[in-house]
Structures are given as structure tokens and as C-alpha cells.
């Protein structure tokens, strides 16, 4: 049974079990995301895809909102735009994001979001937290200064690779990504060096060793390929068929 819903005064049909984000993407309705990645489970933590739901005072993340009959939402109100811009600014203020000297300069989802939201300066005071850089792995590096805690690496490692090397430790301001039992990545025995965490990182936090400023290009689409290949038992890349 198709479900009837309404996005931005537009009547649409969707399948039961689909999320609002899936429907919006299919219909070409833009919704910014950061923690969401096709092929991984939903975290709903970045709050960029928040929408206004008619009849509810609570904003809902579109990535985690299952469509229901009669659902009516707005995706781009002034309030939502204001909040999204604020979220991006807070991400910049919270970490140490120095685009000019970052491996991901020019290939960064946080930088792209700032452009999208019209962020030309940060209205909040920078926290300048003291964070670590882990270069103990022979192939890859992790710079916590650039981490936005999207947990894509955690989910890719657990759900696609099945290693669960990464996890989140601490709470609030002290939340951070750890490998194995909060030990150097190079001594984390669960790590298979598969590089999926590096592929999905939206910023320059995870990178291949030896890349310099603006040279790191992540490949987040790889997890969607792996997830759908497993589901559909089709291991040929779509463009090769």
C-alpha cells in the first residue's frame, strides 16, 4: 500500500518503511546531511536534516523519520535554515578546523556545508580544544582536531567490515573517537586495515599517510556499493554493467 504524504505543499507517494530523507532525495528535494551515509545505519546525530512536522512542535531528523499516512512536513523554513547554519557554525567552533592546512581542503563535506549555508564567519567563540593526532597506524592517520563525531567510521567499521575497531568514548564536549580499548590505532588488533573508515570520513580526520594539503579525496560511496552488493548478491560495480 503506498503512503500519501506532503512535503513543502507537494503531494507525494511513498512506500511503507521508507524514511522521509529517502523520499525527499528521490523527489529531488534538497536536504543537507552529514552523519547520514547510504549503506550505513542511521545515526540521526548531526541534526542537519531536521524538518518541521505539521501538528508537532518537535523538529524531526528526516533520515530517521519513517513516513506515515498523511505526514506533512516542511523542509526549508526560515527557522530550519537558521538552525542548520548555526549547527555548521557550532561544528567549526567546537573543533580545530583549519581548512588552509587540511588534507581535505576542497574535498570536505563540512566545508561544502558552510558554502551551502552561507557561513562566511563563525559567530560563536572558537573552543580551540586540545586534541590528539594518532599516526601509529602504518597506512593511515587520525587527527581528532578535525573530527565532527559523525560516527560514520564507527558504523562502517562495525556494519560493513565487521571489525568494530572504532567507538565513541566520553560524553558531551569530551566525546571522542577511540580505537579498540582507547589505545593507539597501530596497536588495535581488531583493525584489518581495510580503509573503509578512511573512505567514509566526511572531513580530514581520517586520511591516508603521505597525502598533503588538499590531496585527500574520500570515497564514501564505497559503503553503499558494498552494502547493496551484499544485499543483492551482485558484486559488479553499477557503472561496469
Amino acid at each position: 500500500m503506498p503512503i500519501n504524504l506532503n512535503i513543502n505543499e507537494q503531494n507525494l507517494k511513498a512506500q511503507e518503511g521508507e524514511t522521509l530523507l529517502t523520499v525527499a532525495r528521490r523527489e529531488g528535494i534538497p536536504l543537507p546531511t552529514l552523519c547520514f551515509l547510504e549503506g550505513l545505519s542511521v545515526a540521526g546525530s548531526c541534526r542537519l536534516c531536521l524538518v518541521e512536522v505539521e501538528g508537532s512542535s518537535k523538529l524531526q531528523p528526516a533520515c530517521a523519520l519513517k513516513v506515515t499516512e498523511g505526514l506533512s512536513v516542511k523542509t526549508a523554513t526560515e527557522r530550519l535554515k537558521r538552525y542548520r547554519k548555526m549547527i555548521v557554525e557550532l561544528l567549526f567552533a567546537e573543533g580545530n578546523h583549519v581548512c588552509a592546512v587540511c588534507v581535505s581542503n576542497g574535498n570536505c563535506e563540512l566545508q561544502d556545508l558552510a558554502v551551502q549555508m552561507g557561513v562566511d564567519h563563525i559567530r560563536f567563540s572558537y573552543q580551540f580544544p586540545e586534541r590528539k593526532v594518532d599516526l601509529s597506524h602504518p597506512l593511515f592517520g587520525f587527527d581528532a582536531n578535525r573530527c565532527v563525531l559523525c560516527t560514520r567510521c564507527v558504523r562502517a567499521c562495525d556494519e560493513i567490515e565487521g571489525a568494530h575497531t572504532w567507538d565513541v568514548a566520553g560524553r558531551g564536549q569530551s566525546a571522542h573517537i577511540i580505537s579498540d580499548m582507547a589505545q593507539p590505532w597501530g596497536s588495535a588488533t581488531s583493525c584489518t586495515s581495510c580503509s573503509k573508515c578512511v573512505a567514509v570520513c566526511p572531513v580530514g580526520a581520517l586520511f591516508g599517510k603521505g597525502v598533503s594539503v588538499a590531496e585527500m579525496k574520500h570515497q564514501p560511496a564505497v559503503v553503499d556499493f558494498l552494502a547493496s552488493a551484499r544485499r543483492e548478491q551482485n558484486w559488479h560495480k553499477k557503472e561496469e554493467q
Partner: protein
Amino acid sequence: MSRIKLATVWLGGCAGCHMSFLDLDEWLFELAKVAELVFSPIADAKVFPEGVDVALVEGAVANEDNLELIKKVRERSKWVISFGDCAVTGNVTALRNPLGDPTPMLKRIYLAANVVTEGVPSEKGIVPALLPRVMPVHEVIKVDAFLTGCPPSAARIQAALEPLVKGELPKLEGEHIRFGQGA
């Protein structure tokens, strides 16, 4: 036609934004028809003058001299524009901030790793003391517009200057506001 009074200021930054300004090449002749450069590291003026229309400020507020100058710039200018990522975000100049007070860093640089100097350079009135924390310009004074980039490309600088010389604040958007890059 009267020309606007344009100033460019160099705080804690690498001068790359000013190099990019010079990269405007022949357009600088067009600019000179409508703007008079009254203060700049590339002009011979020792004192920041009164009645400036537009001040482009490169660099973050990193030391006592920067702090003194930026306050003067604000008082004497109609519009202050943060010019480049160091002014806008702190950027490379603020890389020292997570380390806290700069004294241990200075000792490490000038004492532990250097046998030439006899101590941390300090000369009252000559070598300005570092501030405990590097600040983007808008944390210290009101800023009227932001010109991002490390450095902002000549095209981006031109896009900001064109409205400014006509007496309008620039409204840059899209790729023209991307941090880290000049496009």
C-alpha cells in the same frame, strides 16, 4: 569624482592576502581611479589616518601591537572588512591556541631548539608580546563584511571591492565564501 579612502592592514598573517591583492594586476589601475590607498604595508604611511572608508584587515589579532592597531582601525574607519581566513577564523595564526599560554612554546623555540639567541626575544616597544590567545578580528571589534580564503583569490578580492568602491557592502556567496580556498 572623489575617490574612496582605502586602507589595508597587516596583523598576524603571512602577507599572502596582500600578495593576492597585488595579483589583481591591471585591475589595480581601475581601482586607483576610484580608491586612494591611504594606509597599507605596501604604502608609505606610518600612522593609520582618520576618515578611512574601507579597511581590509589581513591576519588575526595575535599580539599587543595587533590589538592596539585594530582598535584604532575600527575607530577611524567606516567599514572594516576581515580579509582572508586568518582575520576571519584565526586560521594558521591560531594553530597555537590549543597549546594554551604561548610561553612554553616560545621557550621551546628560542631556547631548547636554538643556540643562537640568548633568550626569548623581548624588547619593550620593539618586539610586541604575544597575546595569550589568538583571536579572529570580529572577536575584538565589529566587522562589517567577511572575505574568506587562504588567500582569497584576486577574483574574490575584486568581487568584494567592486561594491565597496561604490559605497555598498559586498554580499559574497557560493564558492566565493569557501574557507581555505581562493576560488
